[in-house]
């Protein structure tokens, strides 16, 4: 009976020790990561606000005379028509840090999304394929994910 408290003490100590042993390693590092994450988030916010500012600056800038009506057929000679220069590349042919750091402007996003406008109509595609002696494939089967959505 006398041994009971001693046994209890040992059990309690072992319990505490095992609980603390489960504590993940590098907890302080985790905190650092969280801080870094918050910092990055703030940076993102700053970036987006700066971009918005830049975009509004773009809006305020004097517009080219022909911008309104010519659409994608425009004769705009800006970055898009800088001929065959090595945009954003160093002499070794690798992308420069400055180029990699570029954030897409609203115009860049718009240009990327507008690529679909260059797609041919079904009729154009059929003519093109017939003219080049080409064969169309069968439409791909829907994926399981799409089938689920339909249900």
């Amino acid at each position, binding site marked *: 009976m006398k041994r009971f408290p001693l046994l209890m003490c040992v059990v*309690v100590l072992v319990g505490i020790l095992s*609980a603390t042993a489960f504590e993940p390693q590098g907890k302080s590092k*985790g905190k650092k990561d969280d801080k870094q994450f918050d910092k990055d988030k703030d940076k993102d916010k700053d970036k987006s606000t700066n971009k918005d500012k830049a975009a509004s600056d773009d809006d305020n800038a004097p517009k080219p005379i022909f911008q309104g009506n010519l*659409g994608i*057929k425009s004769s705009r000679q800006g970055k898009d028509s800088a001929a065959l*220069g090595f945009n954003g590349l160093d002499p*070794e042919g690798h992308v420069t840090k400055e180029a990699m750091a570029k954030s897409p402007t609203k115009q860049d996003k718009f240009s990327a999304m507008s*690529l679909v406008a260059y797609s041919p109509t079904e009729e154009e595609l059929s003519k093109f394929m017939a003219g*080049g002696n080409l064969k169309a494939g069968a439409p791909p089967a829907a994926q399981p994910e799409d089938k689920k959505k339909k249900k």
Partner: protein
Amino acid sequence: MRKLIYITLFFAICAAPASAQGLGSLIKRGKQAKQVADATKGWSSEQEVAIGEASAAKLVAIFGLYDNPDMQHYVSTVGQALATHATRPMEYKFGILNTGARSAYGMPGGYVFVTSGAINSMRNEAELAGVLAHEIAHVDNKHLEKEVIAKQTSGAFSHIGFEEVGNRVPYGGLLEKIGEQVVTQALTQSYSRDKEDEADRKGTEIAAATGYDANGLKNFLTTLKEISDKNPDAQKQANGLWGSTHPSFADRIAALGPIAANFPGGATNDDRFKKEATFHPASNEAVVHEAPVPKPAASGPATPASTAKTTKSKAKTVPKK
């Protein structure tokens, strides 16, 4: 004995907050592990399209689009013809990036880009088709997505966006960050060799199934090798991107030979290519003097039909902002 009990209780009181914190941290880590597990499943089609749009915009920001709507339309039409043979349902979008560097990229969400420099070094439509089909194969097999997720999981890429996204469609800063990682992977890292081999094989099959000469990609790579061997220093800038993200020309040409041999014949559509893939005179001059002397067409002479007039872009206009 009492002393011992007091000492034990003292230690227990001191250690209790630490162990409670440990338990909380354990739960938090568990949640994070679940998020990581969710994300490693791969992107949903909605996530893929959103990430594709962000990465395409980033590529446009870096290089710009080549300002020639007729040529953009032509490349897009060749691409759409090939895309009918892709296995994954996807709305493909094709574009020409404005850089003299010879390269091409297949981004998530069906965005496929080829550079104006690459087109300027091609001799026929089959070569263009070979390159586009190779990129379609990368998209079809989600190669870029797999590489990015692997790097996020290994810690080579930041997992910021990764944890936040979970199963939702990312937006704002997070979307931009993931787009950035995708472009970083595409422009500065290479695919694993097995992915490149798979894209070469599948791309060649797609091009051949469409009716193109299956040697298109092989012939284009041969051109790049010749240009590079002739004057390696002068061609560093033009071929650097391709070289840093792909296996050596010689290895790929050797591997492509037997694959292409399985698909004899096929159209090269030389005349249509010469007519449609025209550059502004000034820019053309800048690169043409470096191109090799044209060789006879590899195989599959262009059919009479190939000389037919192609459908011209019907003054497609994009709505202004």
